[in-house]
């Protein structure tokens, strides 16, 4: 029965992929997104049933390669992530029905619909894959389909760069996964994911490789740079899927490995937490300075992935220290946070897509006043902002609460050095949370409140209804997921001491209602409308408002060591001796630390080396024969040496 649901979902997604490729029309696109919607409903049933009953479905192995079958498997972990997919997809599908129509040509619209389905399918199959080869295959398809989606507007220079960068990073990720899996395969002699009862030293290498591989895909610092490039380039619905689901698929892969290891070591946990905390902190700090709404959200994804990995790291540390209940708590926390992030990040990206669509720009400084012109979108955006700022009683808070609980009790570890480490990690975690709140006050406040800051923004209109229903689904889930978090956790089988947020939410609501009614009933005089006080200036103008850059200025000052600036000169001359100046510019800009010290130098080195190598192929027969001659000599000497 369960299997049928899954096959149905897969079939729906496949037909959703194929259909728009066959015939270009609006109806096929609609049908395609409808199919993905259907598939998500089926998936919901499938994953829910597994999580509830704990029964694992049995899929027959599919013959694939000699000596290697293609198997599907869904345990509770997989079911959890399938649930995550099923939760994000409906909103995105409904949203896309309208959103995809803004693409430039019919061909691209259909391609986008098909690829979106393929992308969802690939992510689903990665989670379902029963062995490493299947996992890698769909992992690659997932990367590829998302790459093509990122490149939907391929002619723009910026997108091209983003696409290339994404491609390279995703390849690096796959390469390390390849390596990690290959070593595991050699160790166990099978491609299946199974318990790894080996000593930690044997697993150290695969652990490192897989950590890097999944870390790149998840966007951990310092492998995170592709995110802020790829997200602005991709259509918003795809960003929602990428940020909401794809990053979590990487988390899933990492968990799948980690949970099968029976004896992890302490340094694993320390490494994971370090990377996680740094990601969280850098993610949010860079986001604060960002002026591009989608890039800001991308940085915020880095932050949240950092939080998830911090939880995973805590899990490892507690496992090593033998604190099983805390280990469970932190694992539950990071899984739950992964789930929540999927919801509110997809919600935010969808809203951002609507806003960008309505205003025609991605610059936060150009928005403003949308709460009046786009009330529904703004309300949804508000829900997303509150959730991501981890405010009660939303789901974002529930996830972080679990992690906080784990952290607060973590000082039970006996190792004093570890305690110091945990204190540092906790404070960085807290700082991240508060900065995120500041970030989303800025984002929501500057985007939606006050007066429109540009003409584009003042002309904005509310988006069509599909683009409202779409994000409304994750928005509702965000609130419900927060309110019913305790119930959800116990449904998922985690018996954890956890405050009842439903009670809290009810209390809040009741008191609010009571207050409101009491005060309203006593109201004597109606409210009056009057100009904002502007220190005597008669009319307020948009340029007087606090700007996005101004808002983050205090934090920029406080973290000025991180936001270092760089002065860049560019000059052109008429002559080679550089004495006759033609034109040039000087630019003071933010130092992109990771980019300029970590990415560009090796890229430059590879580039210049490749130039050098290319020169070897100089088209001259003389040189070619010389190479061959040298090679012959070397081979003769080598053979002589061997003999």
């Amino acid at each position, binding site marked *: 029965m369960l299997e049928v649901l899954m096959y149905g979902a897969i079939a729906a997604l496949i037909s959703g992929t194929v259909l728009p490729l066959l015939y270009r029309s609006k109806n096929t696109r609609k049908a395609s997104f409808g199919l993905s919607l259907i598939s998500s409903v089926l998936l919901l049933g499938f994953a829910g049933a597994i999580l509830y009953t704990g029964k694992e479905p049995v899929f027959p192995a599919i013959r694939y390669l000699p000596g290697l079958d293609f198997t599907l498997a869904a345990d509770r972990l997989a079911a959890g992530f399938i649930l995550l997919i099923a939760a994000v997809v409906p909103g995105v599908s409904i949203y896309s029905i309208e959103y995809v129509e803004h693409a430039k040509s019919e061909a691209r619209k259909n391609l986008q619909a098909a690829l979106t389905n393929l992308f969802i399918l690939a992510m689903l199959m990665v989670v379902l894959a029963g062995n490493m080869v299947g996992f890698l295959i769909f992992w690659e398809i997932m990367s590829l389909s998302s790459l093509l989606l990122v490149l939907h507007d391929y002619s723009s220079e910026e997108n091209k760069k983003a696409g290339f960068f994404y491609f390279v990073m995703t390849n690096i990720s796959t390469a390390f996964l390849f390596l990690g899996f290959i070593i595991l395969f050699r160790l166990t002699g099978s491609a299946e994911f199974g318990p790894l009862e080996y000593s930690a030293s044997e697993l150290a290498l695969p652990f490192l490789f897989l950590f890097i591989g999944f870390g790149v895909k998840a966007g951990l610092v310092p492998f995170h740079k592709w995110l802020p490039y790829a997200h602005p380039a991709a259509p918003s619905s795809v960003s929602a899927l990428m940020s909401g689901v794809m990053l979590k698929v990487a988390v899933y892969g990492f968990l799948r490995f980690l949970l099968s290891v029976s004896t992890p070591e302490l340094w694993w946990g320390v490494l994971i937490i370090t990377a996680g905390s740094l990601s969280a902190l850098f993610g949010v700090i860079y986001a604060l300075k960002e002026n591009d709404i989608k890039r800001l959200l991308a940085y915020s994804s880095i932050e949240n992935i950092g939080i998830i990995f911090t939880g995973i790291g805590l899990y490892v540390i507690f496992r090593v220290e033998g604190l099983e209940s805390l280990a469970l708590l932190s694992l539950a926390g990071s899984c739950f946070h992964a789930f929540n992030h999927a919801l509110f990040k997809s919600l935010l990206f969808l809203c951002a897509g609507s806003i960008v669509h309505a205003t025609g720009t991605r610059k936060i400084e150009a928005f403003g*006043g949308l709460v009046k012109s786009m009330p529904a979108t703004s309300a949804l955006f508000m829900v997303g902002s509150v959730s991501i700022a*981890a405010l009660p009683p939303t789901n974002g808070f529930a996830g972080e609460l679990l992690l906080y609980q784990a952290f607060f009790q973590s000082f039970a570890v006996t190792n004093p050095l570890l305690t110091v480490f945990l204190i540092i990690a906790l404070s960085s975690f807290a700082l991240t949370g508060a900065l995120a709140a500041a970030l989303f006050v800025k984002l929501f406040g500057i985007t939606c409140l006050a007066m429109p800051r540009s003409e584009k923004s003042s002309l904005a209109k509310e988006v069509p209804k599909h683009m409202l229903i779409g994000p409304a689904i994750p928005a509702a889930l965000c609130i419900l997921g927060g309110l019913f978090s305790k119930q959800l956790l116990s449904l998922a089988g985690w018996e954890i001491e956890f405050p009842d947020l439903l009670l809290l939410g009810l209390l809040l609501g009741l008191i609010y209602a009571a*207050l409101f009614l009491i005060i309203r009933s006593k109201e004597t005089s109606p409210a009056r409308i009057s100009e904002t006080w502007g220190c005597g200036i008669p009319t307020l103008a948009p340029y007087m408002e606090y700007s996005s850059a101004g808002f983050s200025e205090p934090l920029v000052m406080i973290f000025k060591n991180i936001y270092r600036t760089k002065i860049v000169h560019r000059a052109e001359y008429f002559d080679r001796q550089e004495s006759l100046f033609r034109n040039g510019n000087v630019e003071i800009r933010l130092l992109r630390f990771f980019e300029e010290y970590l990415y560009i130098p090796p890229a430059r080195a590879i580039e210049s080396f490749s130039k050098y190598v290319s020169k070897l192929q100089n088209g001259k027969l003389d040189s070619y024969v010389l190479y061959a001659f040298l090679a012959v000599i070397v081979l003769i000497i080598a053979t002589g040496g061997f003999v």
Partner: protein
Amino acid sequence: MNISFLLFALLNPLFALLAAPLYMALIRKVKAYAQGRRGPKLFQVYYDLRKLMQKEAVYSPTSSWIMRFTPYLNLSTLLVCSLFVPLVFVPEPAGGLGNIIVFLYLLALERFFTALGGLDAGSAFGGMGSSRSMSLAAVIEPTMVISFAALAFVLKSLNLHQMFALTAGTVLPISPTLVLVSISLFIILIVETGRLPVDNPATHLELTMINEAMILEQTGKNLALLELAHALKQFLLMGILINTILPVGLSTEIDAGKIAVSALLFLLKAGLLAIIIGLFESALAKMRLFRLPAFYVMAFFFSALTILIEVFA
């Protein structure tokens, strides 16, 4: 949920709501005396609130529902918060109320919407206040969390109710490290309530104000609600500090007499604390905004030290 809790749920918020403005006034009075003035009457605060309640609200045409929504939300949040902090007697815990992290984040919720409210009218003052408030809150957050973590670690619970059940009945702090935590808590109290040297609640100068700037556009009963919420916040934080360092008199049983005594004792202790705050404020000058993180680090240091000492001991 049991009787004791229901009783607590009724009494504690009511007590807090009624007593909170008094201490705003008390601190003001202490400061006035320190400056050689007599200052307004203690109950002036209540008169002010009543007057504001009766006044109409004035809204800017640029503002939106955020501005109308925020005051109610803030007060209701703080009222929920008051369920978390047992002031005069500790009930049987129920429904996870009292969770210290939830408490922290309820404060964050209040701050979040206040800041949005500041941005809503579109005036530069509001924006400035929001920006500063959120920035400083971000910087203080690690300190707060570590302090509360230290508190939780020393008192071996995540729930304020359970913590205070532990401290109740003792005269002196049950662990010497609690003194260290208390110093941190005191600093947090100063910061969170927007007092000198962080913020000056008494001025309306754009260079200095943080909290006042955010609510500059609020008028009438909305302003009253916000003021009340602010006072409540201060009172609750004071309550945590008092019940940590000087829990004497905190009752754990439902007994009208005992509760009355304990309430009276609490009012006295809070009065003492308010005087200390007032004196502390008078003794210090406003710090430059960007010097503040150094101030917070002090609190951070004490809390981290607490955890380390507890671990080593």
